[in-house]
């Protein structure tokens, strides 16, 4: 592990401007060849990830901390590097949960991080897409105000209970909370990140103590809220009856799976022929249950997805945003994820060096099964 080292940069024009300035400088000095960063779309009403080499474009439209998350950044980076590392150095600027998702799927060969520099920032949360779309201008304003007031009540429900909003998993991180007035921090987490800062001529002698203190406090506070929210949720959804009821609104569109950064299967099992049965089969199921609701297997789909990816879930909330039936999927998944991950003392995307528990081959586990049969 590389120790965190930081440099201070002037914060006067806000976090977006600060990050853009930094990227601008880095592209200018050819430390990065290109940047993938959220940008405002030409219609000015939404944001998307754009791979950009042109500096002027970056300065004009780049918004490193947009009010919404239309696309989970890990999916964007995966699109670029799925077939191998890019031939140029790309800085990917994303929220901490997006970076963690990127690291998580890098472990499954879906992202090649070799030429990618992951840059995160303290995240205030994101607005639910549906809220934002009602009035983009107004919500941009609301988002800004919410940041100023440290108010997360208009953010996605999972953002409100996110205890990892400043987690540094990538190479560089922009610290904005608890810092000296008028100063933000650029913190390096890896030797790769440290080299970037050195190449740009920064001296890494800024203390991160007050930032760390603030982050710890926010995280502790959110953790408390998270625990409480999960406990409430648990009482509502646990047990098969409650679970079936919760997911009874599911229309089987599988949007949640499609937007999920860690759902990486080419073909979801639940989209395959394996879950398409004959009328006979359905009849016998209807007979044994008394009746059967169609479309079938909605709860099974949710539970199957939970089994499959809860260990890698980063609680980003993309699924819940995509749910046209407003099922609190992200909240349920974040609750399950916390529990499954804690079994293995694992935090998804925390470090590229931690193998995903379910795919880590532990020989001892094999012999413990063997011994049980002796």
């Amino acid at each position, binding site marked *: 592990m590389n120790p965190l080292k930081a440099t201070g940069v002037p914060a006067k024009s806000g976090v977006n401007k600060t990050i853009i300035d930094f990227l601008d400088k880095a592209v200018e000095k050819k430390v990065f060849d290109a940047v993938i960063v959220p940008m405002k779309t030409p219609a000015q009403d939404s944001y998307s990830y754009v791979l950009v080499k042109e500096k002027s474009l970056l300065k004009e439209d780049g918004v490193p901390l947009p009010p919404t998350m239309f696309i989970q950044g890990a999916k964007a980076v995966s699109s670029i590097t799925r077939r191998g590392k890019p031939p140029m150095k790309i800085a990917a600027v994303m929220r901490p949960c997006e970076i963690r998702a990127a690291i998580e799927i890098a472990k499954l060969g879906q992202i090649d991080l070799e030429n990618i520099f992951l840059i995160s920032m303290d995240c205030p949360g994101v607005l639910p897409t549906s809220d934002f779309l009602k009035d983009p201008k107004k919500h941009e304003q609301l988002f800004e105000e919410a940041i100023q007031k440290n108010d997360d009540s208009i953010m996605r429900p999972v953002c409100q209970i996110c205890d990892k909003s400043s987690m540094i998993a990538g190479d560089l991180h922009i610290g904005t909370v608890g810092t000296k007035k008028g100063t933000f921090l650029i913190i390096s987490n890896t030797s790769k990140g440290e080299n970037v800062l050195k190449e740009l001529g920064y001296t890494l002698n800024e203390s991160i103590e007050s930032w760390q203190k603030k982050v710890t406090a926010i995280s502790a506070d959110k953790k408390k809220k998270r625990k409480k929210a999960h406990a409430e949720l648990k009482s509502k959804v646990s047990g098969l009856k409650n679970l079936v009821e919760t997911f009874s609104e599911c229309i089987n569109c599988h949007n949640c799976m499609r937007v999920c950064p860690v759902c990486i299967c*080419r*073909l979801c099992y639940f989209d395959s022929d394996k879950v398409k049965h004959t009328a006979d089969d359905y009849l016998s199921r209807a007979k044994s249950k008394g009746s059967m609701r169609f479309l079938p297997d909605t709860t099974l789909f949710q539970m199957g997805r939970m089994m499959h990816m809860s260990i890698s879930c980063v609680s980003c909330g993309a699924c819940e945003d995509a749910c046209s039936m407003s099922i609190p999927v992200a909240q349920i998944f974040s609750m399950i994820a916390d529990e499954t991950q804690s079994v293995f003392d694992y935090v998804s995307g925390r470090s590229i060096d931690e193998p995903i528990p379910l795919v880590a081959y532990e020989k001892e586990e094999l012999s413990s099964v063997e011994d049980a049969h002796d």
Partner: protein
Amino acid sequence: MEIKIGVYICECGPNIAEKIDIEKVINAISSLEDIAVVEKFSLLCSADGKKYLSEQIKKNKLTHLVIAACSPKEHEKTFMEVCEQGGINPFLFQMANIREQCAWVTEDKDEATKKAIRLIKAAIKRVGYHASLDKKMIESNPNVLIIGGGIAGMEASLQLASKDRKVFVVEKNDSLGGLVQNFEKSFDDMKLTSEILDKKIKQIETNENIKVFTNSEVAEAIGFFGNFEINIVSQSNETEPVTINVGAIVVATGSNLIDLTDNTQYGYKKLDNVLTSIDFEQMNLSGNITLKNGKKPKSVAIVHCVGRDEKGYCSEICCMYSLKFSRYLKDKIPSVAINHLYSDLCIPGKHHQNFYEETKTDKISFSRSSDIKITQKGEQLNLTYSDEKNKTTNLLADMVILSPAIAPTNDAAKIAAITGISRDEQGFFEEEHEKINPVSTSTDGIFIVGCAQGPKNIADSIVQSEAAAGKILSSLIPGKKLEPEIKTSHISESFCIGCKTCLTVCSYGAITFDETKKVSVVNEVICRGCGNCVAACPSGAAHSKHFNFNQLYQELKEAVE
């Protein structure tokens, strides 16, 4: 094609007949879909039973066969052969185990009968989803590569070489013989080691079916049982690399002593006259046991169990050769006093206790000790240690011989990487199973013998070489084709996401990664169908041919209905 399933229930003498109401079972399943015939028979695995079954298959024009009888572990192969005799593919067959799983364990006859019906129904359902799988036959190369020309490797090569089987021995040093060539005599017969060695080396050198590559290393070994391609390079780079083809590999790369260079406790390489066992063997072999100052030692301390605690295992042979050292010393310097310091004496074997009793005289003592520290005291060496009563004791000696733990050779990791065999916690090559497959590895066709597998004496090393040779002689027969596993895994190219998880869980090296397509590919000749990849694949791309999802799902559904 019309499906006609025949179900045959074995009474297994009284085993099943007395515990299960077979008539009731027949009634319950006779009217099921696709059932052509349901019959019972007294003992299906008997010669009469097998004949009856194959006739039934033909007579009833069956397409699928279900046998309700004992465990498939016992007779699956038997009935698969019957299928072939009857003219149906042996994989269009399923067994329901109503003996071990019902008759033998369920006391209540009604319950046992119910359970048997469920299991048979599940087997009937499953067999309908079976696919014909064809046997594959591959040509095999009978030749054998032996890595390491020590006593174990030499023995294996002599056992294996014949006019229709060439043996290639790759030895990294400039001559055959290995560690043993340092020894003057062998424990416990005290015969000249050179006599055994010279004889074996001569036999190898004059055997036209053995080719020895000295000063050479194996740089690459690719392939699988029956067909390995080996690349041999000369260390001196004087000769061109050589490529040979073999069907099996015997790894006989021996062992090392643990490295004591950084050890501060025993003063090795820091104090004069502190030797390791190998140093002493060599000094003894030179015929001149002397101190640094040229004088003969009047007292020698032999320290056993050096490094045992750190390593966590007893190296098995040190006590024995340490006793042998006493004999060396007594033969050459009759007046010498010898002190053995040991943690535990380990002298198993049917003759060895006698050897110990005969060695022990008033000038050769044995003391149990721990926390030994060796320092210089004048001309002599001072050994400070805790004795059996935990009392700190001092012992002066002119010379100290250390018996360090036996450790894997320095190139063990490299050889493991080249051959694809695994190593155990200590770094020795790992056998497939300690008890039932002690010389096989998880890779079919690669065997480990001698100290490469763990510390052992000459006799045990030779036994292992003979065992490995036996395995190879019985399975890799010149001119005979090999029949690889049929129930292999398959990875779907369109579903594979290229995460390479399967590569890490495959114990047989059967999966490779296609870098252009970014997908994993199973080599069906190497795959043993263990199912590791199927279980680990996060995207459902890997499946097992005879245990595919649908087969298991249908079977399970019927069993729990």
